């Protein structure tokens, strides 16, 4: 008798569960209602998200077919991995930010929807205003697959308090004297680091792993990770050997850079200088310490600039790709582009003036904007990028590891890097 009751109880519970899952499944697959858009981003900065949400709210006022626009911040470190895992799991976002280093993979794979038609047709969009230099990375066969919403040059942030305390000339004074070279920058950093007991110069996000950030250094020597066509390894070129020798000496002999496995955050006051993108200016706290932003020092090959880029694309798999592309056109139109410019240097030529940028970048002076941002965007070299970047990047990282020892044989290590990656480049 008791068993019979239990049996019925279980049967009813199972039937209920089945009915519930059936309902859930039905609800999700219904696709007739207004679209819900999701955009993955790697910034969880509150000010950034507030601005995005403002733009989205404004868009939704005139677009009843879009019920919700959600900005989904994924962790910066594993951004691309998380995004591709979401795509693999059938949970692709409608729109996604894409790093410059995965641009070739995303653009060539067909994962993104072409945007030209939507953008050109959008009212008041002024497509011709977009600087061709900034679009190059995001085009394939003449079609644009992502909008370069941020083209952010690398510059050097300086803790002027630390530099002055060490009795050194500030980078601004060195620039005025025409002496802003890597040799002098490293000497200043070493002195400031030694005096304060903190770190000298930190190449941010490098941490002896994110080697592509070193392009902010070796480009001054005319070195490249690989040739323009991406087929030949550049790590064992004489220029690269010379650049890496300087970097190695600066790290292990001169102690201008903190060694491997040492963390130092410039924005927390842990180092005298840092090489990073100007979009990080938002990390500076008011009243923390005296600071300056200057262009990258000159290398043996003279002045140069390096830019990091981020694109915004529409996933082809999105069931609402049309609405997503339409929102992208709104998100990046001249008005909104000007608003976004306070965080992300825009690709619009008309907005790349010191006056326009100064309005939204209160922390930066017009000459800093001109020298670092505008000149950088116009002349800058984009950080290394290649199809199959993740695998290449891993091989280079593993190959460079032996370099970060005090007694490394630099030429041999760099030859080893090329031996590892040449087969991948030749693919």
């Amino acid at each position, binding site marked *: 008798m008791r*068993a019979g009751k239990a049996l019925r109880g279980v049967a009813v519970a199972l039937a209920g569960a089945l009915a519930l899952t059936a309902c859930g499944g039905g609800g999700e697959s219904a696709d007739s209602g207004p679209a819900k858009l999701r955009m993955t981003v790697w910034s969880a900065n509150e000010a950034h998200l507030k601005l995005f949400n403002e733009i989205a709210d404004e868009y939704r006022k005139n677009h009843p077919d879009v019920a919700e626009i959600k900005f989904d911040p994924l962790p910066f470190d594993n951004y691309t991995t998380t995004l591709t895992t979401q795509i693999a799991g059938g949970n692709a976002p409608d729109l996604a930010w894409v790093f410059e280093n995965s641009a070739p993979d995303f653009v060539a794979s067909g994962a993104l929807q072409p945007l030209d038609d939507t953008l050109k047709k959008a009212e008041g969009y002024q497509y011709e205003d977009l600087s061709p230099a900034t679009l190059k990375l995001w085009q394939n066969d003449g079609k644009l697959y992502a909008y370069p919403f941020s083209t952010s040059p690398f510059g050097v942030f300086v803790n002027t308090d630390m530099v002055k305390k060490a009795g050194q000339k500030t980078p601004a004074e060195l620039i005025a004297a025409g002496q802003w070279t890597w040799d002098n920058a490293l000497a200043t950093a070493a002195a400031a680091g030694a005096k304060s007991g903190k770190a000298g110069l930190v190449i941010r996000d490098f941490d002896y792993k994110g080697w592509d950030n070193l392009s902010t250094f070796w480009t001054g020597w005319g070195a490249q990770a690989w040739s323009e066509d991406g087929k030949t390894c550049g790590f064992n070129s004489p220029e690269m050997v010379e650049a890496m020798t300087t970097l190695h000496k600066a790290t292990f002999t001169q102690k201008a850079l903190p060694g491997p*496995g040492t963390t130092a955050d410039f924005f927390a006051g842990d180092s005298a200088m840092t090489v990073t993108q100007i979009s990080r200016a938002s990390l500076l706290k008011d009243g923390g310490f005296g600071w300056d932003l200057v262009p990258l020092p000159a290398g043996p090959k003279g002045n140069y600039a390096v830019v990091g880029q981020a694109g915004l694309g529409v996933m082809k798999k999105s069931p609402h790709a049309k609405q997503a592309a339409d929102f992208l056109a709104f998100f990046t139109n001249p008005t909104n582009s000007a608003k976004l410019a306070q965080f992300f240097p825009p690709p619009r030529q008309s907005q790349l003036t010191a006056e326009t940028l100064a309005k939204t970048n209160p922390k930066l002076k017009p000459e800093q904007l001109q020298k670092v941002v505008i000149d950088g965007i116009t002349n800058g070299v984009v950080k290394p990028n290649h199809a199959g970047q993740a695998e290449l990047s891993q091989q280079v990282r*593993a190959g460079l590891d032996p370099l970060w020892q005090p007694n490394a044989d630099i030429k041999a290590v760099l030859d080893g890097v090329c031996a590892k990656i040449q087969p991948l480049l030749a693919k």
Partner: protein
Amino acid sequence: MTQTDTRVGPATAGPAPGRARPFWTTRRRDQLTGYLFITPQLLGSAVFVILPLVLVVWYSLHEWNVLAGTFDFVGTDNYQALADDPNLGAVLRATGLFSVGLVVLNLGLALLLAVLLNQKLRGTILFRTLFFSPVVVSLVAWTIVWGFLLQDNGGLNSLLDTVGIDGPNWLRGEGTAMVSVIVVQVFKNVGLNMVLFLAALQGVPAELYEAAQVDGASRLRQFWRITVPLISPTIMLTSIITVVGSLQVFAQIAVLTQGGPGTSTTVLVYYLYQQAFQFHHFGYGATLSIVLFAIVLALTVLQWQMRKRWVFHES
């Protein structure tokens, strides 16, 4: 809502009323009840264990490009790639090194601690708690804290500095990185094996030791001749758990070294994660996971066979 009471079914609508035995005998009813009770668990393992296992085999026969959305049958190409993979040797070596290091250190230390804490001394309960507590700490939190301690300018080297030793850069040296990862993992889990050994030690009858003492056996001889044989089933159990666990190590590697320096700490699970989720070679990643499966299976079967030789008794 129209559910009929099956128990009365045969009685009212059966083809041969009267004589026929009712379909729902007590035995059948009990069986069905049993099956229904295990259904949730069974469904869970079918969906989350068995189905993925089958799918992994299926994926390993395909080239799956997530970004392009292509999924092409390539036959045994991925298995061929396995044979041609220049990194696989180093990866298997790192995996073997980690497993051997972990098993030897973990079991050795666990047994030593268990023997020490099995003495009737003051404070043993406190020490048991202390050694066991890392087991309940979150793995990632534990590893992150160790990451800070093992930095070049981290806690461990500062400590060594005070006694005049210039410590190495633990996580960056080819040799020290692997040792660091092993030791961090041993400290994390040694408490669990220690408790298992402790329980086994307390099950060894005291009169055996008394008899041995009367016969004049030394403490060491007592340990090898009495303790080890009697706790051998536990040694067997802990070694299987530890070996299988060591082959699955991932979080520690991902947090502490990301497989570096070079490929010195790239163990099989981390390598397959890289191939599948970072390099987007999901097909090849699936192939590597089959290699892992085969290794775990082979080792477990081997240990199971070997138990006949050295496990003293089985209950």
